[in-house]
């Protein structure tokens, strides 16, 4: 009874957050937390669960942002539709990257850096294409119409991204308990062993890649509709890739709640350091970098990973105790 209450409380808090908080600054923080939860959860599917460390998710993010925006500004297609077109295109790009890298068995640093290279190639391609307005970026006209994915109130953005994030958490939770999840975990732990168990490595990696790429693109469309201005460096740039993977590493790679917990820490932390030290240029990012290093040094499994570890140990200890009592 108590347990369900404790489970429900944070859920309710998240649900009524916009009702409790009217302040647009904090509402925006909430939106950013959920937004990064969603994105790093998407990254988590590929990199957390199958261990294929991607350093180029900006490729998918940018694809999503540009697809929905071009469809909207050029053809008047609602972003609600455009974002799924973006997700589709992004999935194709993901599968193409996967086809090349997985077929040729690139792993570890080689895989990470080749995803980075793909993202850079896409960025430069967009920068040189008139169709994508080159480096000028594209502005989405301010027109607050829910059908056009623009809301007057921040809480509507909040609930939209909440649905995204909730869906991604649910999806990863389901994957974790499915055959796919077991296969991916096996691949992550030991690819050769997984193969000898009859796991189709290539196919499973491709599924993870496709899902991850598609979801990331949805995040890109959301970004475009929230900021209403996109250009190549802020959608396809390396910084985007880094910001996507940061929360989940802090929160716990390969865990269901890692992205949420990680975002709950990193986003407010970034705001806090810039509010406290913002007047001394550079100092707030110094502090942020330092905290990053310390967290990884002392919580190498991430925060959720740490709790899981402790829980496991405690359980083992309790079992021992029970055995002793019985003995």
């Amino acid at each position, binding site marked *: 009874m108590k*347990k369900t209450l*404790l*489970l429900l*409380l*944070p859920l309710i*808090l*998240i649900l009524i*957050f916009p009702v*409790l*908080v*009217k*302040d*647009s*600054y*904090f509402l*925006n*923080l*909430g939106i*950013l937390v959920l937004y990064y939860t969603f994105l790093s959860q998407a990254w988590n599917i590929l990199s957390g669960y199958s261990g294929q460390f991607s350093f180029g998710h900006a490729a998918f993010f940018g694809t999503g942002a540009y697809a929905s925006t071009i469809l909207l500004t050029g053809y008047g297609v609602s972003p609600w539709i455009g974002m799924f077109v973006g997700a589709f295109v992004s999935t194709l790009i993901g599968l193409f990257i996967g086809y090349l890298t997985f077929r040729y068995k690139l792993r570890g640093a080689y895989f990470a850096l080749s995803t980075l290279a793909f993202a850079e190639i896409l960025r430069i391609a967009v*920068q040189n294409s008139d169709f994508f307005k*080159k*480096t*000028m*970026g594209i*502005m989405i*006209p*301010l027109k607050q119409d829910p059908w056009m994915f623009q809301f007057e109130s921040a809480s509507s953005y909040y609930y939209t991204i909440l649905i995204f994030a909730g869906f991604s958490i649910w999806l990863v939770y389901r994957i974790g308990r499915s055959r796919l999840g077991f296969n991916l975990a096996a691949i992550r732990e030991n690819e050769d062993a997984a193969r000898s168990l009859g796991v189709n490595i290539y196919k499973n990696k491709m599924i993870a890649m496709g899902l991850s790429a598609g979801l990331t693109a949805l995040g890109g469309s959301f*970004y475009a509709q929230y*900021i*209403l*201005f996109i*250009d190549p*460096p*802020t959608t396809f740039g390396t*910084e985007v890739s880094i910001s996507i993977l940061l929360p989940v590493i802090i929160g716990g790679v390969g865990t269901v*709640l890692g992205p*949420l*917990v990680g975002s*709950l*820490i990193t986003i*407010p932390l970034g*705001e806090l350091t*810039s*509010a406290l030290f*913002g*007047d001394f*240029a*550079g100092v*707030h*990012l110094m502090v942020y970098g330092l905290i990053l290093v310390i967290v990884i040094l002392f919580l190498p499994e991430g*925060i*959720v990973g740490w*709790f*899981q570890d*402790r*829980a*496991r140990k*405690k*359980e083992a200890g309790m079992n021992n105790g029970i055995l002793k009592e019985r003995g």
Partner: protein
Amino acid sequence: MKKLFFLTMVLMLILSGCGGNNASSGSNTGGSASSSGNDAAKSSAEPSSAPKVAEVKIGGLYPLSGGLASEGQDMANAVQMAVDEVNAAGGIKSLGGAKVVLDKADSEGKPQKGVSEVQRLDRDGVVGILGTYASGVALPATQEAEKAKIPFVVDIAVVNEITERGFKYTFRIQPPAKIMANNFLSYISMLNDKSSVKLSTAVLAHEDSVFGSSIAALIKENAAKSGIKTLEDIPYPASTPDMSSVVNKIKSLNPDIVVTTGYLRDGTMLIKGLHDANVKPKSIIGVANGAFSNQQFITQQKDINQNIMDVNYTINPKSDLANQVKEKYKNQFQKDMSANAAYSYTAAQVLLDAIERAASADRDKIREALTQTDFSKHILPQSPIKFDATGQNVNAQAVLNQIFDGKSQVVFPDDYKTANPVYPMP
């Protein structure tokens, strides 16, 4: 499995609990600030808000860290200087001598960060915002300010669209890309008219972000009307360590004029590269070039920068006031006042002037006052600062500068000129 789920939930509870607390306390402070968006009703209920304000807060949104930090900090410093001057002279007089407080915000040059910083400034109860240098930040940041109904005076940000979206709260001091491009083309026609040698072919070399690209695109579009033929435009990333391919291309195209828009580092490398490769175009003209109007380039690269021109927003060389301000800035920050800083300084003065005339800390009244701006005690080479219906400074213009013996002089228009143009370069 269930247990760890439970544990993580506890953690989340704690976390979201903290968040909630902060949030609610935050919204309290937000509510008590005099003019936070939706509590107009509340403020009218308060005892009549006649001139009894202890302090007025304004925001300054600049890239204080990251790759654009050098310019951003210069600009924030200039704003601080303008604020200090008003405070030293007795604050905002119409508000009973209220002190002005500058709330600095770091955009890090990122659009998303710009938006959240505008929201933070909103929370802090600023009555107006200055910024932003980077166009990519200016577009979403002014939009956020529009939503929150905060007057936003853009000092530097070049993209046309900033004042073309029908916003009521956005004002801009700088000449936008189209004016810069037009100024360039009219100056080049003028130079060709006056000179016996007519130069007609040009290569556009520009850094490839919105800043360089938007100006280059406009020049390319309209060059033919001024009798200029663009042979090619060569975009390059501003952070490139190697300008040699740009130099080689220019060498092989052999244009009369090299037209270039960029920043200090790439601009310097380009000029060095052209010099080393023995490429001698008949004219080198920067448009809003971050190098050619930078003291560091002008004085340190004396050997290679003779006669280089730059069409740029700048400080009025003929104004005594401007010279005093420049001197003061240099004494205070041990650095020459850049044109960017001068525009920030002016933007701050314009905003403070509006607050004075509004005689109120109400954002809407300040916006109203901004639309009525007629500010002539400024340090820019232009007639009084006035805003048109879109919020653009109507008299904004770029002047033609030319470097002679390690010093930059204005050579056109005549009202501001301190030397005669040398064209083509001997």
